[in-house]
């Protein structure tokens, strides 16, 4: 495979490079970066005038559902969805059946990723922090790291016991792998199915109070002060005060990072008013104030990563009463569009900052190899059209599931191709 990426704007936060340049790629390796490369025989030229060439995006928080829930998504359909959304890598959460809490399941997931979609999307498992995600005994973390796990989480459930959380932080610190917390004090969220506050009161739905998230983060930060060698990452942060806890912990120099989902910086609890179950996720959509705070956190760097929490559920599972419906929405195929529309177009982030949060930062915090734009290096690239306007059509998603509240949204900007592992995909 010989490719000439012609006339694109290379934006590489690692080297600080931001310029219009041509890139020639041969068999997955960057052969030349220069201006005015002319196309030679056997080389496929891709006209990228007005387009952006970025290091490959990674979504560090997805649910691929395999093994166990293949009716919602498989590693193959999840990777196809990731590719279509512009991601060259995903980290999949361990709430499968069986859970990714032993070597064999971790290896299965990691290896399976290489065999689907031409191997263009790297699949990195996040393993369970505790056996069976029960929060009682630590998972075999060392073995799991050897089998390819890049982080530990009981996502979907919090690591509730302070003793277990302390030990998880200590043990994982030996391998430099983060513990990723689904921050929720469960005793306060029992029947909750949306954000607690004016809208839940209006609709008569039980609330999930913002303090349930804030309390858990506050507690974890205190634990982290006690185990400062550990690395702690907050999954899908959603409230203003939760973010304040992270900001303060960072200012103390603690190893804290956090991620936000595109839905938590785009829409509010107001969309629940029609009882569409595609507005039901955990953490729930919060208020206008919280959305503004997420944007502040992205801007000032408190939020390191944008991740989707891609959570596929079938139409039958979602077409039920609001209280019965499972939590979660798919996100891989709308993420880049929402980021460009809500953040870059609205001048919350520069394109460089956005690329950091979709590629550089998550790779760094997961200790994945840095993507380097240099001759002789492997090409791992996401191509963006920052101005293309398009309409979200969930029916056209590559994901097996269509549960998204963004159907019909007009977005500006999208991914137009990815290159990784010697393969290329343009759309």
């Amino acid at each position, binding site marked *: 495979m010989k490719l000439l990426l012609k006339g694109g704007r290379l934006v590489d936060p690692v080297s600080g490079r931001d310029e219009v340049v041509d890139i020639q790629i041969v068999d997955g390796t960057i052969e030349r970066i220069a201006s005015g490369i002319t196309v030679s025989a056997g080389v496929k030229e891709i006209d990228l005038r007005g387009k952006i060439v970025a290091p490959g995006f990674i979504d560090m928080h997805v649910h691929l559902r395999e093994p166990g829930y293949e009716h919602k998504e498989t590693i193959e359909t999840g990777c196809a969805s990731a590719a279509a959304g512009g991601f060259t890598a995903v980290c999949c959460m361990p709430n499968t059946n069986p859970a990714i809490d032993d070597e064999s399941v971790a290896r299965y997931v990691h290896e399976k990723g290489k065999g689907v979609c031409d191997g263009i999307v790297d699949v990195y498992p996040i393993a369970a922090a505790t056996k069976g995600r029960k929060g009682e005994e630590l998972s075999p973390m060392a073995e799991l790291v050897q089998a390819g796990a890049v982080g530990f989480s009981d996502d979907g459930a919090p690591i509730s016991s302070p003793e277990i959380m302390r030990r998880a932080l200590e043990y994982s610190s030996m391998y430099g792998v983060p513990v990723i917390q689904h921050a929720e004090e469960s005793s306060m969220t029992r029947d909750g199915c949306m954000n607690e506050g004016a809208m839940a009161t209006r609709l*008569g739905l039980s609330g999930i109070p913002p303090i349930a998230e804030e309390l858990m983060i506050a507690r974890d930060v205190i634990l982290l002060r006690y185990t400062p060698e550990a690395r702690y990452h907050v999954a899908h942060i959603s409230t203003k005060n939760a973010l304040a806890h992270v900001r303060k912990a960072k200012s103390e120099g603690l190893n804290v990072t956090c991620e936000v989902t595109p839905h938590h910086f785009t829409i509010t609890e107001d969309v629940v008013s029609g009882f569409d179950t595609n507005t039901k996720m955990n953490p729930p959509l919060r208020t206008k104030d919280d959305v503004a705070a997420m944007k502040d956190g992205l801007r000032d760097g408190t939020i390191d990563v944008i991740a989707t929490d891609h959570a596929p559920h079938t139409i039958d599972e979602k077409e039920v009463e*609001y209280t019965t419906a499972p939590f979660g929405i798919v996100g891989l195929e709308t993420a880049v569009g929402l980021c460009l529309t809500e953040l870059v177009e609205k001048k919350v982030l520069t394109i460089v900052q956005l690329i950091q949060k979709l590629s550089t930062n998550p790779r760094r915090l997961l200790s994945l190899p840095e993507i380097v734009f240099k001759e002789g290096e492997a090409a791992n690239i996401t191509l963006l059209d920052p101005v293309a306007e398009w309409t979200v059509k969930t029916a056209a998603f590559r994901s097996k599931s269509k549960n998204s509240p963004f159907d019909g949204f007009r977005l500006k900007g999208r991914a137009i191709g990815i290159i990784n592992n010697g393969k290329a995909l343009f759309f």
Partner: protein
Amino acid sequence: MKLKSRHLLGLDGMAKEELALILDTAVSFREVLDRPIKKVPPLQGKTVVNLFFESSTRTRISFELAERRLSADVVSFSTAASSVSKGETLKDTARNIEAMKIDMVVIRHAAPGSAHFLTRVVDANIINAGDGAHEHPTQGLLDMYTLREKFGTLEGLRVCIVGDISHSRVARSNIYGLTTMGAKVSVCGPATLIPKDIQQLGVKVYHRLDEVIPEVDALNVLRIQLERQKSGLFPSLREYHRFFGVTKEKVSKASKPITIMHPGPINRDVELSADLADGEHSVILQQVTNGVAIRMAVLYLLGTTN
């Protein structure tokens, strides 16, 4: 004048004119109820299904009577005899029933939004007869009707809803309907049973009956459910009765008589003393009678205009 929607899902968002239309329509049906022959023909040939996924005596009988008095064909379904226990989804149950060619569905269900949900999966007119803690619009309307009958107008009327506001669909429908009609609505109950940010719905919050009683024309007393005690929301029925139970002694502090309402069924001498429930200022049985008229009005307006 017509209703904007072909369903009655809740009073939230309904215009003043629409609410007035229902109340005014109910006046003529209320007269029908006093006739020797209490049946009129407008829904002849229409089939109404009452889907009750929660036990209910009063509301179900009231709807059935209203439907029959409008000459509709009526089928009622309750959970005990349903296929829900066989694991069928609400969507399938509703679509199967609709496949038998029915025109209107009255639904009572424990999940907020279940009536909204039905509008997305079937074509019939949907009437919400109570969806969890969300709304019970015909109850709100019959309460408004009863108050209007007693006071002549709702404009400026001061009404306090007393009890477990958090879990009450009656409270919400009353709040939406009454505030739209210009009444001044307050709520009074233990802090743990007042939902967060309820002030944003336009109501004043009290935690002491003696503070609110001098300020109101009517008290709408809600049923307290024992299971709230188990979930840690109030300590005991005894304590609840002492501090939030509406009694003759407490209302006697007001300078003029206070109208007593209750959506039923009453826990006598828990949230409301028996002497008040049966007393001269109680309109509890009028509420029940008016309920049939209100439901006839709603069924008539929805069933004959599309």
